[in-house]
């Protein structure tokens, strides 16, 4: 029973995340916010949208 409940709970949470991610990605950014960039270099994750772009 616990295993089934675990799978259901994980499924609900994963589904919630996928739904929110898709919903957010499909929503266009408002005008004037398209090219916002933070130029952050706090970590080495270069795929992050806020990471400082190399010239």
């Amino acid at each position, binding site marked *: 029973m*616990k295993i089934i*409940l*675990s799978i259901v*709970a*994980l499924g609900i*949470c*994963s589904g*919630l*995340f996928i*739904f*929110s*991610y898709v*919903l*957010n990605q499909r*929503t*266009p*950014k*408002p005008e*004037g*916010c398209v090219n*916002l*960039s*933070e130029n*952050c*270099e*706090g*970590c080495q*994750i270069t795929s*992050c*949208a*806020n990471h400082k772009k190399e010239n």
Partner: protein
Amino acid sequence: MSIFAIIIACLFSSNIILSNFLGICPFLGISKKPSNAIGMGLALTFVVTMSAIICFALEKYILVPLGLDFLQLVIFILVIAAFVQFVEFFMKKYLVSLYKALGIYLPLITTNCVVLFVAQKVAAYTELNGVITFEYTFINMLVYAIFTSLGYMLVITLFSFIRVRIDSNKETPEAFKGNSIALITTSLMALAFAAFMGLSL
């Protein structure tokens, strides 16, 4: 623990950055300008408070009664990530001016370990003879979540003012420039804040 003691501990003596060393990546990355530091702090305060409430309720009313608390970490990560996505969506759609000011920090908050730390801390409980007692009441949890993130905001803002001066200092040796001098400065700030541990509350 009294509310006042929680506030002082969160802001000064047990500051999340200076005593737990959490959230260091955004701390180093976003502290170059005071305006960015304040924006990050405000966005973090909102996300930490809301996710702490959600995770506290989830743990107390769903995970523990169903015996699924071993899934706590995975479920909290998914819930926090989904919550940040919903907040970003809502801001894009209905709060454009707020999105312009704070929206850029939301992707960075998803990877900020402060959020998960606070969520796990407020959901902590002890079990004795089958009786489960949560360490935090709802009010204590709320105060802890709000003031932990305000403590983060305080330190990142103070540090950003110091960093402006450090970055404009031409006498900094080449080897110390960037994150090296930033971390040394942070350690000195940690020593200064450690003085608050002497307070007896």
